[in-house]
């Protein structure tokens, strides 16, 4: 059954919606009336992020001379407010000796990239390219 929508797409300008969608996973979808999907996206991204932190993953920042770290940093920052809060409280430093380190990184990067896809989806909904 198609999801029920309550409108709301005009409540914020599209760029603001996209920033909000980036900051909080699912918030963009919530604001355009896709509530059930917003809840699912929030839960999935937050679980992936928390698993990444729990598994000693690293919120990667750019390292000079390491081009791949720039891509990883984009994915890390893609987690939005989760990234900033984790950094502020000293989480996500990464424990390279941990057996789960690489898996932690995978979860953190996956969460960030999923959140960035949500921003693009909100853009498509906001511009009318996607009507559900």
């Amino acid at each position: 059954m198609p999801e029920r929508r309550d409108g709301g797409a005009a409540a914020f300008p599209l760029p603001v919606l996209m920033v909000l969608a980036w900051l909080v996973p699912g918030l963009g979808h919530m604001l355009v009336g896709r509530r059930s999907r917003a809840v699912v996206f929030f839960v999935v991204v937050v679980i992936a992020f928390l698993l990444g932190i729990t598994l000693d993953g690293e919120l990667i920042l750019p390292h000079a001379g390491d081009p791949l770290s720039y891509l990883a940093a984009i994915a890390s920052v893609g987690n939005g407010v989760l990234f900033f809060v984790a950094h502020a409280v000293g989480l996500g430093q990464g424990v390279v000796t941990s057996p789960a380190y690489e898996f932690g990184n995978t979860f953190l990067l996956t969460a960030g990239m999923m959140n960035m896809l949500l921003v693009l989806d909100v853009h498509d909904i906001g511009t009318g390219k996607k009507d559900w």
Partner: protein
Amino acid sequence: MVDHLTLMVLDALLIAVFFSFLWKREKRERMMYFWKVFGALVLGAIVLGWLMYPFPRS
């Protein structure tokens, strides 16, 4: 918690749920897509692991 297969399955599960809700609208479509993505990720990783098995690390 650090069992690699379990973590890989968990990651595949989250990704499959995410994409089925991102790209599919109807419940039945989502279920079909979920199992396709989940199966492709898990089985693909296992197959890739076996294909890499004969190659030495260094």
